[in-house]
C-alpha cells in the first residue's frame, strides 16, 4: 500500500510540470512581443526594451522556462505587473473568502445531494427517482450566474431576507458570515448537487444489485438499514471521487459567483487580472487551481487505499 501511495505521489510531478509548461506557453505562444503587450499601447520603445530586459525575454526561450520553473520551485509565483506586490501575497490575501464559501458550498451540496441520490436509487424507476433526475439535469443546464441572479432577486431584492452582495469574514461574526455567504454558496451548489446526486444514485444502484444486499433482505434486515449500512457505505467510493473531481467545477464557479456577489476572493482577483492583462497573476491562479485540483484527487486516491479494505494495489 505504501508503495502505491509513493507511486501515486510521484505521478503528480509530471502532470504539474506539464501544467506549468502549458501555462508558460499560453503566454509565450502569443503572436507579438509579450513585453509590448504587457507594457500597453502607451509605452515608448525604451520602456518596452527595459521591460524585455527585466522580464528576461532576451534569453533563449528554454532558459526563460527553466528560470521560471526554478522560481516556482522556490514557491515564488512572480510579481504582479499591476500592483507590484508578489502574486503569493495577493493570493494569500484573497484566498480566505473563496475557501470559506467553497467549503460551505461543498458541505451544503453533500448534505443535499447524497439524500437525494439515495432517494432516487431507492425509488428507482418511480416518481421520486424521476423528480430527482429532473432536478439534476436542470442543475447542469442553468448557468451559475443566472442561478445567482434568481436567488438575489427572490431572497435579497423581493423578500429582503439577505444582503444583495458583499462578504463578511467568519471572524466578524458567524451569523453575518452566513447571511452573506449563503446565497453565493447556494449558487455554487446548483451544479455540484446535480453531479453528486447523479453519482450517488448510479453508484447505489450498482451496489443494490449485489448478492449481499439480497442476503441482507432475506435475513429480514430493515429496508432502511440495508439501504444505508449495506448500500450507501459500499457506494461511497465513486461518490467521494465525484466530490473530488467536482472540485474543479467549483473552482470555475468561484470566478463567476464572486463576480455576481462582489466577493473579494481569488475569483475576483483572476478577473481583475485578466481585465488588466496582469499575466503573472493569471499564470499564478491557473497553477494554484490546478495544483489544488491535483492535490484533492491525490488525497482522495490515498484515502481509498487507507479506508477501503477492498482496494489493494
Amino acid at each position, binding site marked *: 500500500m505504501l508503495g502505491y501511495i509513493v507511486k501515486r505521489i510521484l505521478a503528480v510531478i*509530471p502532470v504539474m510540470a*506539464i501544467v506549468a509548461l502549458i501555462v508558460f506557453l*499560453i*503566454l509565450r505562444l502569443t503572436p507579438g512581443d509579450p513585453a509590448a503587450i504587457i507594457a500597453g499601447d502607451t509605452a515608448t520603445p525604451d520602456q518596452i526594451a527595459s521591460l524585455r530586459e527585466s522580464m528576461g525575454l532576451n534569453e533563449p526561450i528554454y532558459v526563460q522556462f527553466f528560470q521560471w520553473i526554478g522560481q516556482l520551485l522556490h514557491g515564488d509565483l512572480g510579481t504582479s505587473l499591476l500592483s507590484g506586490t508578489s502574486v503569493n501575497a495577493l493570493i494569500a490575501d484573497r484566498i480566505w473568502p473563496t475557501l470559506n464559501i467553497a467549503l460551505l458550498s461543498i458541505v451544503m451540496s453533500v448534505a443535499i445531494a447524497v439524500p437525494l441520490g439515495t432517494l432516487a436509487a431507492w425509488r428507482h424507476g418511480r416518481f421520486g427517482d424521476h423528480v430527482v433526475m429532473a432536478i439534476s439535469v436542470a442543475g447542469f443546464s442553468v448557468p451559475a*450566474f*443566472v442561478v445567482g441572479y*434568481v436567488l438575489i432577486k427572490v431572497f435579497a431584492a423581493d423578500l429582503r431576507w439577505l444582503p444583495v452582495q458583499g462578504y463578511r469574514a467568519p471572524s466578524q461574526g458567524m451569523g453575518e458570515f452566513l447571511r452573506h455567504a449563503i446565497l453565493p454558496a447556494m449558487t455554487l451548489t446548483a451544479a455540484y448537487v446535480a453531479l453528486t446526486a447523479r453519482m450517488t444514485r448510479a453508484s447505489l444502484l450498482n451496489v443494490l444489485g449485489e448478492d449481499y444486499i439480497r442476503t441482507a433482505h432475506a435475513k429480514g434486515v430493515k429496508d432502511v438499514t440495508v439501504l444505508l449500512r449495506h448500500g450507501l457505505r459500499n457506494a461511497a467510493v465513486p461518490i467521494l471521487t465525484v466530490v473530488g473531481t467536482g472540485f474543479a467545477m467549483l473552482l470555475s464557479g468561484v*470566478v463567476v459567483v464572486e463576480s455576481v456577489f462582489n466577493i473579494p476572493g481569488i475569483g475576483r482577483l483572476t478577473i481583475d487580472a485578466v481585465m488588466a492583462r496582469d499575466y503573472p497573476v493569471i499564470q499564478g491562479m491557473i497553477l494554484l*487551481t490546478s495544483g489544488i485540483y491535483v492535490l484533492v484527487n491525490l488525497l482522495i486516491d490515498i484515502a481509498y487505499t487507507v479506508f477501503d479494505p477492498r482496494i489493494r494495489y
Partner: protein
Amino acid sequence: MADVSRATTPGGGIARLLGLPPGTRIGVVPWIALAMLLFIVLVTVFAPLFSPHDPIALSPLNRLKPSSAEFPLGTDAYGRDVLSRVLYGGQVSLLIGVATAAIAVVAGLAIGLVAGFFRLADALIMRVMDAFMAIPPVLLAVALVAIHGASVSSVILAITFSEIPRVVRLVRSIVLSAREEPYVEAAISLGTRMPVILWRHLMPNTLAPLIVQATYICASAILIEAILSFLGLGIGTETPSWGNIMADGRTYFMLKPSLIFWPGLVLSLCVLSINILGDTARDMLDPRMRKREA
C-alpha cells in the same frame, strides 16, 4: 429469436428505425426535449424571419421599455429589442456549441486512437491530457481569450482545449478494450496496415459513445460561452450571443431583471434539451441497459 420479439414489440417502430434493440422504450420527455430543441434551432436559424426588429439598431427613445406589443420582451439599455437579440444571439451560441463539439470530437478521436493503440505515445499523451484536465475549463478559456482577443473562432478554440481530454480518455478506453478482440488480432496477423486497422476496425466502436459525448460538449460549450461573455471576455455586443445579452443586462439588473432572465431561460431550456437528449441516447446505447431490458 430477435426477429420474433421485434415483430411483436408494440411501439418499437422508432427504436427499430434507430437500430436499437427490441423493447427499448423511449419516454415522452425526450420527445418534448427534441421538439423544444428543434423549435429553438429553427427560430434562431431563421431569426431574420421571426425578429420583429433589427437586433443591433440603437433606439435611445425606447430605453428599458417593458414588454409591449411592439417589443414582446421589452428593450435593453440601448433601446434594442430583447426578443430580436435573443433570437439572433442563439445563432452565435449554437454555432459555438456545435463547432466546439465537432472540433473536440474529431481532434479527441484522432489523439485517442493513437494513444489507445501505440503504447509509446500513450504515456506521453495521457500525461498531457491529465494536465489539461487539471486546469479548470473556465480559467483556461478565460486565459486564452484574454490573450488572443475575443472572436467567435478564438472562443471556440479556447473552449475546445478543455473538452478534448475528456474525448481522448473515452476513445482511448474503448480502443484499449477493443484491440484485444479477436477480429483486431486477426487484422494485425493478416498484415493490415495500421491506419486501416485504426479507421476500419477500432474507430466504429467509438461512434456511439462519441455521439453522446458530443451532446454534452455542445451543452457545456454554450454554458462556457455565456460565462465568458458574462465576465466581460466574450464576443462584442454588436454580435449578440445569449451570454453577452445577459452581460449587458447586469448593470440594470435591479431595475429590469428580465434582461438576464429571458436570455437565461432560453439558454437553459436549450442546454436542458440537449442534455436530456444526450442522457436518452446514453441510456439507450448502454449495453448494461439492454441486458436489463432483456
